[in-house]
């Protein structure tokens, strides 16, 4: 499949196929998914843009090394089943990753076409292949090795736990996933909203895992309902900890306990996991702010802001102390948020919440910032501008300034070594922790990161666990 120079030039002139999306005026008030997905025709047209590079930069840019030109070629040829099987070899959750990976800093960021124009829409193509299989595929299960009789416990059902479970069940082990919440999926169900990742997709992934023979047990708070020691006593031979970084950070400024101030974790859990946007049809309420302020500018902040808009807010403001370049959210989310009418107050630092006599939030005081010298992270440090205080009215504030390590499990397991931020120490190559027979990966090791990194860590750990179960520690 050698390309001549001339044909390469021609391909690059096909424009990137736009992703059809719900109109912003309509979607800002509903919870349906925003991008509608490629048709087979647009997918094939987009796939035809790929130059099939001999040394594909995109693969280097993919944290799990998906063979991108190969699956894109299969899409171009119309072999959608072949394409998804190819992706599955490296990535167990492509319908999820196609939707939520920060492609612009991974595969698409380094795609050769990005040098001169628009990169190949790798994420959209990945999503297309996965959706096509979900809607039209045979549902055929991957081959499973002979049962080994070895019992594995996977704690946490986020993307890293699901990856470990999927890999090990295919290798013939007896896998049980233990999840604290009443529904499996981790951040994919409680954090990322329906309009960005339909819950039906996550449910189908879980179902796929169960059909392969893994057990998923909800309502199991490991460290409380059962300890790691007890899991070994019950006959589990290896344990994977993929419990995420579930500890909300607050700003620790005056007034933070007023009614109307929620962590993004709480706000999104109410909205997504508990479906509170349907209240009172469901029983869990959620505050519906008229004037909403979201503190932070990552994916979590964008999700919170866009949820607030959908719950009927008159205004929603993102307040962030750094500038636009430093905003950690995916480019597409920022773009969608802007289209939906979310306002951005950049270089703005909240200093105080203001409330009324009933303890309800009525506003915030903020300071304007400017960028100073670079800090440890290499980003220019925001410094306050003298006497730039100003007030902002709001009746709901959502704090999305990051999360830390939830200590519930680690405190009940004193033998686990932690780093100075209280994340679990694990070998980056194998996921092995300081406890024999215990692996860890995902956000509980790296701190809040991405779905794909959590899955990548899961895959490495699954390989190491399989070796251990076969040959020993």
């Amino acid at each position, binding site marked *: 499949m050698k390309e001549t120079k001339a044909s390469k030039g021609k391909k690059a002139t096909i424009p990137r196929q736009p992703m059809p999306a719900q109109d912003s005026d309509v979607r800002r008030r509903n919870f349906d998914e925003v991008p509608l997905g490629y048709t087979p025709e647009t997918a094939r047209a987009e796939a035809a843009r790929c130059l099939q590079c001999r040394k594909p930069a995109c693969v280097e840019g993919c944290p799990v090394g998906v063979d991108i030109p190969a699956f894109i070629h299969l899409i171009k040829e119309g072999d959608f089943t072949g394409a998804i099987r190819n992706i599955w070899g490296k990535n167990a959750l492509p319908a999820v990753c196609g939707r939520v990976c920060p492609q612009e800093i991974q595969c698409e960021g380094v795609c050769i076409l990005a040098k001169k124009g628009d990169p190949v829409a790798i994420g959209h193509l990945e999503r297309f292949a996965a959706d096509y299989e979900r809607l039209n595929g045979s549902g055929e299960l991957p081959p499973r090795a002979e049962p080994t009789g070895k019992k594995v416990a996977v704690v946490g059902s986020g993307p890293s736990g699901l990856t470990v479970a999927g890999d090990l069940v295919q290798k013939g082990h007896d896998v049980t996933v233990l999840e604290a*919440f009443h529904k499996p999926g981790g951040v994919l169900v409680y954090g990322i909203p329906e309009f960005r990742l339909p819950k039906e997709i996550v449910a189908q992934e879980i179902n796929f895992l169960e059909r392969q023979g893994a057990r998923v047990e909800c309502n199991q*708070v490991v460290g409380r309902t059962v300890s790691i020691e007890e899991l070994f006593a019950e006959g589990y031979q290896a344990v994977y900890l993929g419990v995420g970084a579930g500890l909300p950070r607050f700003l620790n400024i005056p007034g933070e306990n007023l009614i109307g101030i929620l962590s993004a974790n709480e706000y999104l859990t109410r909205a997504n996991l508990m479906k509170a946007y349907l209240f009172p049809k469901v029983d869990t309420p959620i505050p519906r702010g008229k004037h909403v302020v979201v503190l932070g500018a990552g994916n979590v902040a964008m999700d919170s802001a866009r949820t607030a808009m959908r719950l009927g807010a008159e205004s929603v403001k993102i307040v962030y102390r750094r500038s636009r370049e430093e905003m950690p959210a995916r480019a597409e989310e920022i773009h969608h948020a802007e289209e939906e009418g979310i306002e951005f107050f950049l270089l703005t630092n909240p200093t105080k919440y203001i409330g009324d006599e009933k303890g309800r939030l009525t506003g915030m005081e903020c300071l304007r910032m400017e960028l100073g010298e670079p800090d440890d992270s290499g980003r220019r440090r925001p410094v306050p501008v003298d006497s730039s205080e100003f007030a902002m009215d709001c009746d709901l504030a959502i704090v999305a300034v990051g999360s830390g390590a939830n200590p519930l499990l680690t405190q009940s397991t004193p033998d686990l070594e932690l780093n100075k931020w209280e994340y679990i120490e694990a070998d980056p190559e194998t996921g092995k922790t300081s406890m024999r027979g215990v692996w860890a990966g995902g956000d509980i090791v790296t701190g809040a990161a991405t779905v794909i990194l959590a899955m990548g860590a899961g895959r490495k750990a699954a390989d190491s666990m399989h070796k251990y179960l076969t040959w020993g520690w």
Partner: protein
Amino acid sequence: MFKIVKREEMTAGSVILNEIEAPAIARKAQPGQFVILKANEDGERIPLTMAETNPDQGTITVIYMVVGKSTALFKTLQVGDSYQDVIGPLGKPTHVEKVGTVVCVGGGTGVAVLHPITRALKDIGNNVICIIGARSQDLLIMEDHMRAASHDLRVCTDDGSYGHHGFVTDVLKQVMETEDVKQVVAIGPVPMMKFVAEITKEKEVPTIVSLNPIMVDGTGMCGGCRVSIAGENKFACVDGPEFDGHQVDYDELMQRLQAYCEDEQACMDGDCLIRS
């Protein structure tokens, strides 16, 4: 699914006992810990402290007052029906220690929560005086249980329909005059705990209270249950639910408990659609 094996209406329709099959939780639970219950798919997650556990039978017992939309739904569940989800045991167990004379003060359904703690304090060798109260006689629960779990039981009602006419705090003051009280445990409505703590603070008697803020996950992941303890934020579901009664900001807790009052009322009036 978690089946209800026993159900009792402890007062005329407003306080209800459920004994529920939950063997894994029953095996692990200790006094002071709570569970989160969810009745069905669309249900809310409601935390309730366990009043009793029976590891041999594999059951736990919770007692709740019907106060809102979700507890009204719980009330409809009969023996043989199930909760879809029960999660636990959550929170830190009570620190039970032999200190001498201990006074346990309980109000309303707080008495149910106080019961296993009282029994544990007695079992470890303390002299346990118990003061329980309710608005009126028909709202008083677990009198016999509490008598058995303590050495000396005093009962009060706000309206004087039974026992001492007045508040548990009045009786507490009297007891503290005559006895060498080393520790107080107070569980009940927030104002009751607040007043108990004021009385015991004066005499510097260590006091434990059990807090019941609004919760979602119960595992320290949402921060909705945060309470101010000595000016610092704590998550009641993992750092508590029991705290040093002299350090709690009760007024803030009372306000935060009102966060969803309007939503609850809209539902209880059957006027549910106004916010949809």
